[in-house]
């Protein structure tokens, strides 16, 4: 079969990404432009405004990086959800327009599935248990009978959000979590913080509240708080992941999503994989944050297994759950 090229647009939150993937599993382009809020967290409308202003440049840069023209594109994929409505809508609008203009099929991609698929591709992991952790998601999942089943997830806020908000309140550099990780290295004394695991599910909001209270009380060293917050949050992730790994007996453990960039979390996951005789995989940095390549690659997998999203059914799905997606390419 001839090489098929898929262009993918990612716009679930603050990152606008365009990627181009081939049916041989090669990523030809992966370009990104990130909206940075002047103050506070991501404002969906402002982020969407950024995306619509930047999409032309990012598209052009991706095509240039891939050394292909618009007419070489065979499929257009876009992140259909879950995510922030205004941001999703911007990406979807561009994708629909591109598909109609080029006369090629459109494929809507689930953002969480894309994080798993790019991790599997880049790390060459066949059938891993996956911990997907980012600013918007905290999910322990694995493939079983046609779908990515959710073994554990957060009951309230995602772990990345917990770290980001703490970092922001502590006046650390935006986007927060990387600076928090650096400070944590200088932590010496462990500060007890609430540890909340419910069966296979997690809760981070109490941990965040307690950490913020301690931060504002001024009685604790910031570095110690950063270290302790990370340790508690990651130990919670470790416990649930370990249980799911023991339960499913999967041969590998894949760490994906923005928080996968954290070295401490990586070392915890490596230790757990080793303990259970599983191989440990970490998504490479360029694919850990939200990116267009993962949408392009997942869109391609879906397209090749027969999935099409007609333009008149391509509504965005801000609440689209990972386990609702039929994983047609793994059957």
């Amino acid at each position: 079969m001839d090489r098929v090229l898929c262009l993918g647009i990612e716009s679930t939150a603050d990152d606008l990404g365009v990627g181009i993937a081939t049916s041989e599993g090669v990523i030809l382009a992966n370009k990104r432009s990130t909206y940075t809020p002047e103050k506070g967290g991501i404002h969906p409308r402002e982020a969407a405004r950024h995306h619509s202003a930047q999409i032309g440049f990012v598209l052009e840069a991706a095509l240039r990086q891939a050394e292909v023209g618009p007419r070489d594109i065979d499929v257009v994929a876009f992140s259909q959800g879950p995510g922030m409505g205004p941001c999703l809508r911007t990406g979807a609008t561009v994708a629909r327009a591109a598909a109609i203009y080029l006369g090629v099929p459109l494929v809507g991609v689930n953002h969480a599935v894309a994080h798993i698929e790019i991790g599997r591709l880049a790390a060459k992991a066949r059938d891993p248990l996956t911990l997907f952790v980012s600013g918007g998601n905290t999910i322990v999942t694995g493939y079983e009978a046609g779908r990515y089943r959710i073994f554990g997830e957060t009951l309230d806020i995602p772990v990345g959000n917990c770290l980001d908000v703490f970092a922001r309140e502590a006046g650390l550099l935006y986007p927060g979590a990387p600076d928090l990780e650096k400070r944590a290295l200088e932590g010496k004394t462990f500060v007890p913080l609430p540890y909340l695991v419910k069966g296979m599910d997690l809760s981070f909001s109490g941990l965040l509240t307690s950490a913020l209270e301690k931060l504002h009380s001024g009685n604790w060293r910031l570095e110690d708080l950063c270290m302790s917050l990370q340790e508690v949050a990651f130990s919670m992730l470790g416990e649930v992941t370990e249980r799911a790994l023991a339960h499913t007996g999967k041969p590998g453990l894949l760490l994906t999503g923005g928080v996968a960039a954290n070295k401490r979390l990586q070392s915890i996951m490596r230790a757990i994989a080793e303990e259970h005789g599983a191989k440990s995989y970490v998504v490479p940095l360029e694919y850990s944050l939200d990116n267009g390549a993962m949408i392009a690659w997942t869109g391609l997998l879906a397209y090749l297994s027969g999935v099409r999203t007609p333009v008149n059914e391509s509504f965005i799905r801000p609440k689209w759950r990972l386990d609702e997606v039929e994983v047609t390419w793994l059957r």
Partner: protein
Amino acid sequence: MASIEAAPRRIAKGAEAELFLESLWLGKSVLAKRRLEKKYRVPELDKSLREYRTIHEAEIIHRAKEAGVSTPILYLVDVPCSTIYMEYVKGKVIRKILDELSTEKRLDFFHRIGGLVGKLHRAGITHGDLTTSNMILTEEERIYFVDFGLAELTREVEKRGVDLHLMEHMLMSTHYRYAEECFSSFLQGYREIMGEEATAEVVRKIEEIERRGRYISEREVLEDGDEQSKQVP
């Protein structure tokens, strides 16, 4: 620590603890549950988690008995070694026999399990890890709850809701063929102990928990957006 007369035999290793069967211990067949050290946790956190969970589990196993739920007899709680020595309950793990049961029998079991969970909740105990792997059926057809590792002493509707949510979630993921009918039997048994009103309250909570767990990014956006729109003129 009391002396052990025969060499212990490890019979199970979970993610959190290992179980040893000690054939002769003051003349009894004894199960030792030892919580494992986790190298990936900082030592302070690791020690406090293991000790806390050991004491806590022992206390709750005892309280569950008072509430009318069959649990193993406790012999010794060795906190520094984070080990509980308890009765070895002989029987079959419910999860493993469910497929072999007749529909009627299965529904009866879930009806009884619902009642037992109701008794726990009524006594202010939430289980925290309700799965059919933690329940044992003895020869006399008594259902034992054997793992209270994540249980809590609380009367919060939230935590009761999480318990039932876990039960439903477990049914959907491991026994999906008959999940729905089993859960409704379970709820019936639960209702008989907890009453109509309290049950309805918990069921509402389950729905809320499911909504909350599911659509995180969306909810975050709304909160954030609201907060910020106040700052934007």
